[in-house]
């Protein structure tokens, strides 16, 4: 038999190792497939620096629910499937992220928060030097690292400037008006001005919180991803250039399209949808829930919450309300010059897996103080 050269030996050893690695990954993917019921793309299965196999989930370049909804939800659903529902090591790769909006940021924080609470671990920041510095700054402003109890955060932070500033997240499982007050105070400190129609905003936010306690997490519902019953998340942002204020609220419950049909006779609901010229889809059900004012219980003294939530938008300059629930999106912008643009409904391919409410307003240039 011909003797192998050193070079040939090294070639065959590398090939052997490569085949062994492929077999290990293939076995892992088969195991993952048995557990999740779906094939795992090979590109997601990698090794960390210590050689442990993990699922790598790169964030989309733009984490914007407005401009990139489906790709954002693809990522979120992967995190839910592999991180929360299963017991795999997951690496969330922030290096690919170049833009994050305030509502996307809150959604991301809530999903990571659920992941670490349910799995009982402390996520470690990795490859920080390769993160986009503005993204890092915004995530640090919003308190993502505080809430997640990240342990190996470097002491010095990159210094960058962004057009927008985020305020720290709040999260709780009870109707805590104190959290809403803190949010308002943070916004006012950031804006250097009072929040317009602050009492109306407080009413809307506390109603959203109360709705979560009563309706968002019914015990008899089945959940694809286990929720943390009663938990909600809240945040905000301010853009100094155009004095634009945003407040966002999110829960991971069953969503308005789930609860509305269960609290009204089918014939009544269909009649209402028909009278409003609406189809029987998630976005229309969000709209119908506001009209009915009895979104859950069918009792005359319950369910004005969504009306209160909408009410703030009418009282402020450039007021805009956006509700994402199930696969539906409802946008209400009473100040739009074209009446056709004052209310819009969108049906997405993917459910958001909860309810997200976003209020927007513009502070007057001469201030309110």
């Amino acid at each position: 038999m011909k003797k192998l050269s050193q070079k040939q030996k090294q070639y065959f050893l590398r090939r052997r190792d490569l085949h062994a690695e492929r077999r290990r990954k293939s076995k892992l993917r088969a195991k993952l497939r048995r557990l999740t019921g779906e094939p795992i793309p090979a590109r997601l299965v990698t090794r960390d620096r210590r050689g442990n196999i993990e699922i790598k989930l790169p964030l989309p370049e733009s984490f914007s629910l407005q401009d990139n909804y489906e790709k954002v939800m693809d990522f979120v659903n992967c995190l839910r499937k592999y991180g929360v529902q299963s017991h795999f090591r997951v690496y969330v790769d922030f290096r690919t992220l170049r833009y994050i909006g305030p509502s996307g940021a809150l959604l991301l924080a809530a999903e990571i928060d659920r992941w670490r609470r349910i799995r009982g671990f402390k996520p470690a920041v990795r490859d920080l030097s390769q993160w986009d510095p503005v993204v890092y700054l915004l995530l640090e402003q919003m308190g993502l690292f505080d809430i997640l109890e990240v342990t190996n955060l470097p002491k010095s932070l990159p210094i960058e400037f962004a057009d927008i500033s985020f305020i720290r997240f709040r999260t709780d499982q009870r109707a805590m008006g104190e959290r809403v007050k803190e949010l308002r105070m943070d916004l006012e400190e950031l804006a250097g001005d009072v929040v317009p129609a602050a009492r109306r905003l407080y009413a809307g936010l506390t109603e959203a919180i109360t709705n979560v306690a009563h309706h968002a997490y019914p015990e008899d519902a089945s959940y694809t991803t286990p929720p943390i019953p009663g938990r909600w998340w809240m945040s905000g942002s301010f853009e100094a250039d155009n004095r634009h204020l945003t407040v966002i609220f999110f829960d991971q419950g069953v969503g308005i399209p789930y609860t509305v049909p269960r609290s009204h006779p089918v014939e009544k609901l269909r009649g209402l949808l028909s009278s409003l010229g609406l189809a029987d889809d998630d976005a229309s059900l969000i709209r119908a829930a506001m009209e009915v004012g009895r979104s859950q219980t069918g009792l005359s003294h319950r369910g004005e919450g969504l009306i209160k939530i909408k009410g703030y938008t009418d009282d402020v300059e450039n007021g805009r309300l956006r509700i994402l629930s199930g696969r539906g999106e409802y946008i209400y912008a009473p100040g739009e010059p074209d009446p056709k643009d004052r209310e819009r409904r969108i049906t997405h391919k993917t459910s958001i897996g909860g309810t997200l409410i976003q209020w927007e307003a513009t502070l007057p240039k001469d201030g309110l103080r």
Partner: protein
Amino acid sequence: MRATIDIAKDFSDVPAGRFVSDGPYSGEAFRERHLRQALTTGQKVIVTMDGSEGYGSSFLEEAFGGLVRNGHFSPQELHDRMEIVSEDQSLVDEVWRYIDTATQPNH
């Protein structure tokens, strides 16, 4: 004789939630710990609404509408015995709307 309840000072400036189980400063808590007790003394009760961060509809309905729904008072009795004070007239109107439209229990 009159009794004055200043919600922000006597109860909380951050009222939120409907039931006691919702949170520490719910509508039910306000009704049971402050409002109902003051009304049962027979005095005229003045409820001052200003000074708080605001009021959600669940809080207001449970606090005030609950007085009628739970059979403690009729709407007319409350109109006779209670006065709601606020610089925001729409808030005053909202409170009375919950009282006037609350369903009384069958006797």
